[in-house]
C-alpha cells in the first residue's frame, strides 16, 4: 500500500548558474568523510560522491560554449524502487527507501562484488580500492555522524541522510511530526555559492524543488518544466535529480537521441 506521507527527496541543479567552482565536491568530501589519496589524479580510482563534468557544445570560437554538470547519485526510483543498482545487489547491501526515495548503501554488508557499479550508467558508485589514510590530525576533523568506509566496499552519495535523521530527531524532541524544508538540506546544496542547487521533497508542492521540477507523477516523474531534463531518462531509471538549462544543446546532452529525434521532440 502506498504511503501517502512518503517523501521523495530530490534535487534541481540549474546548470546555467553552475560555475564549476567545485565547492559542492569539497563540501561533500568534508561532510561525508570521503577518502582521498596523496596522488588522487586518476579519477577512475578515486572516490567522489559529487563529480562535476565539463561539457561543451562541440563548436569552435566564437560559437564555443561550455557547461558544468554536477552529478551526485541520481537516486533512481525506476519502477517501484527497482533501481538499476538495488535490484542487482546480491547481498541486499543497497536499498531503496520508499519513505524517502533515497537509495542507501550498507557498508558493513557490502562484500565488494561491484555488480552495482556495472549496473549504474551514471558511475555514481565507486569502489574503495585502498583503505582510507587520513593526513596526521585529520582524524579529529572527521564527521562523527558518518561512518568511514573500509577497503573493498562500494560507496556513493547518500543525500546526506544523517542530516535527515538529525532533523527528524530534532523535530521529535520538539514534539513535531514533520520537518521544515530548510531543516534538511544536503552539504552540496548549502555550499553552492551560486545557489544552483535546490533540494527538497519532490512530493511536497510547497517545496521549491517541486515547484521548479514540476514532476509529473503520471509519467514517472517526467518534468513538466520545458527547461528541465533528467540524465538518461530514456533508460527508465526515473531519477530524482533534475537539471535546468535554457540552452538546448545542454538539454540534449543529457540523453541519447537518434538523428533528428531531439529536434522533432522539441518541436512536437
Amino acid at each position, binding site marked *: 500500500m502506498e504511503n501517502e506521507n512518503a517523501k521523495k527527496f530530490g534535487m534541481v541543479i540549474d546548470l546555467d548558474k553552475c560555475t564549476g567552482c567545485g565547492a559542492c565536491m569539497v563540501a561533500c568530501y568534508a561532510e561525508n568523510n570521503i577518502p582521498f589519496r596523496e596522488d588522487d589524479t*586518476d579519477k*577512475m*580510482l578515486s572516490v567522489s560522491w559529487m563529480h562535476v*563534468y565539463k*561539457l561543451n557544445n562541440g563548436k569552435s570560437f566564437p560559437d564555443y560554449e561550455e557547461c558544468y*554538470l554536477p552529478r551526485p547519485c541520481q537516486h533512481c526510483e*525506476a519502477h517501484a524502487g*527497482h533501481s*538499476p543498482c538495488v*535490484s*542487482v*545487489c*546480491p*547481498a*541486499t*547491501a543497497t536499498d531503496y527507501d520508499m519513505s524517502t526515495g533515497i537509495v542507501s548503501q550498507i557498508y558493513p*554488508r*557490502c*562484500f*565488494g*562484488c*561491484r*555488480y552495482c*557499479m*556495472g*549496473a*549504474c*550508467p*551514471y*558511475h555514481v*558508485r*565507486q*569502489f*574503495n*580500492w*585502498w*583503505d582510507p589514510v587520513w593526513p596526521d590530525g585529520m582524524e579529529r576533523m572527521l564527521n562523527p555522524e558518518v561512518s568511514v568506509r*573500509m*577497503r*573493498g*566496499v*562500494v560507496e556513493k552519495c547518500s543525500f546526506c541522510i544523517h542530516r535527515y535523521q538529525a532533523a527528524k530527531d530534532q523535530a521529535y524532541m520538539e514534539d513535531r511530526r514533520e520537518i521544515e524544508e530548510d531543516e534538511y538540506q544536503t552539504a552540496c546544496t548549502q555550499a553552492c555559492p551560486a545557489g544552483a542547487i535546490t533540494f527538497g521533497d519532490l512530493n511536497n508542492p510547497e517545496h521549491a524543488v517541486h515547484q521548479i521540477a514540476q514532476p509529473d507523477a503520471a509519467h514517472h516523474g517526467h518534468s513538466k518544466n520545458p527547461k528541465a531534463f533528467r*540524465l*538518461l531518462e*530514456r*533508460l*527508465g*531509471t526515473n531519477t530524482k535529480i533534475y537539471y535546468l538549462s535554457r540552452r538546448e544543446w545542454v538539454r540534449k*546532452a*543529457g*540523453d*541519447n*537521441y*537518434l538523428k533528428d*529525434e531531439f529536434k522533432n521532440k522539441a518541436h512536437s
Partner: protein
Amino acid sequence: MDSALIPKGVKRCPIWQFGLWIAANGAVLAWGVFAMLLVYIKGLNQTNMNNAYGFALWIWADLAVIALGGGAFFTGFLRYIVGKDELKNIINYAVLIGFICYSSALMILGFDIGQPLRGWFIFWHANVHSMLTEVAFCLTCYFGVLTIEYIPMVLENRKIDKVPFFHHLGHNMHEIMAVFAATGAFLSFFHQGSLGGVPGVMFGRPFGFREGVLVWPWTFFLFTWSAAAFGPCFTIFITKITETVTRKKLVKDNVIDLLAKISGWMIFFYVIAKIVDTVYWANVTAPARGLTFWDFYSNNPGSAYGIWILIAEVGVCGVLPALILIIPKLRQTQATLWLAVFLGVIGVCLNRWVMVLQVLAIPVLPFEDWFTYLPSWQEIATTLLPVAYGVIMISASYRYLPIFPQEQELNPIDEPAAPAEVGEPVPEPTGTGPEPELSPAES
C-alpha cells in the same frame, strides 16, 4: 615408483618425466598463488580495474570457464537422461573438466570480491531479485554435484579400490549417478542462465540489456544454450590435446563424432537465436534508448570493439564451427574437427568477453568516452593459475585413475602396468571396433 597406483593394463610415462611436467606447471601455479596472495593481502588495488571496469578479466574468466565446463552437464544430460550410451566413454573426462572449471570459477570468485571474508553474505543476506544470488546458489550446489560425480573416479584408483568400503561406495555412487546428472542439468540450466542474466537485466547498460520472458532476459536462455552447445567443443578440444600430448588414442572416433554432431546442431540453432536476438536488439531495444547499432561498434580506441568482434563471434566462431560439425565429412576429418572445436571454444569465450567487458567499455552518458582497460600482471597470473591447476589435475587424474574406459582396448600392451619409455611407438588407433568391456566407472 608409483606403478602400484597406475591403472592396470595401461602405460604411463616414467615418474621423472611426470615430475618434470608437474614441476613446470607447478611453477605457473606458484606464480598465480603469489599473485593471489598479493590480492588477498593488499586488496583489489593490485588489479587494473577501476570505477568504470568493476568487472574485468576475472569475471570474464569466470563466465568463460563456466561456459566451457558446460560440457559436463550437457554430456551427463545426454548420457544419463537422453540415453546416448556411447558417451559413457567420454563422460568421465567431461566430468573431470567440469570439476576443474567450476572449482576454478569458485576460486576466482573468492579473490574477486573486495571483502573476501564477507563472501558468505551472498547466502546469508541473499537478495532474491539479483541474478548473482542465483548464480552463487546454483554454482555452489552444482560444484557439489560435480564433486560427487568426481569422487567415484578417485575411488577407482587401484589402491583405493582394494579397500572394500571404498569399492562398494564407488559402486553404489555409480548406481545413483543418473540422479546427480539430472540434478546437475537442472542446476546448470539456472546458473548458466543467471550468468547471462547478469548483463541482461542491467537496464542502465543498453549493450547488455535485453527484454525477455517474465524475469528472465533473452541472454538467460542464450547463455544456457551456448554453454550446452560449446561446452562439448571444449571437452573434445581437451580430449584431442590430451591424445596429442600422451601420443595415444583415448576415445574412439564414433564417440567423438556423436558428441561433435550434437554440438554442431546445438551451435547451429544457437547461432540462429543469437542472430535473431542481435537483430531485434539493434532495431528495437537500442533505438528505443536513443542509440544505434553503430554506436556500440565505432569510435572506440584502437577499434578494440569494432564490428570485427561481432563478425568473429557470430560468424567465424559460430556459423563456421556449426557447419563443420554438422557436415559428416568435415567433422570426421581431423584437421577440420580440430579447427571447429577450437573456433567454438574461442567463440563462446568471445561472447562472454563482450557481454562483460564491452558492456562496461561503452559510454552511456553522451558526454563520456569509451573506457579502456588492460589487465595487470597480477590479474593475468591469477587467471593462468586455474589453467595450471587444471593441467595438473588432468595429468594426475589421467595417470592414476581410469578416466578413459577405451584406453586399454585402443592401446593394448603385453606387460601390465610397466612404466612406458619416452618416445615408444604409438599403436595405431582402431577408430571403431567392438564395444569394450565396461570400465570400473560403468560397472
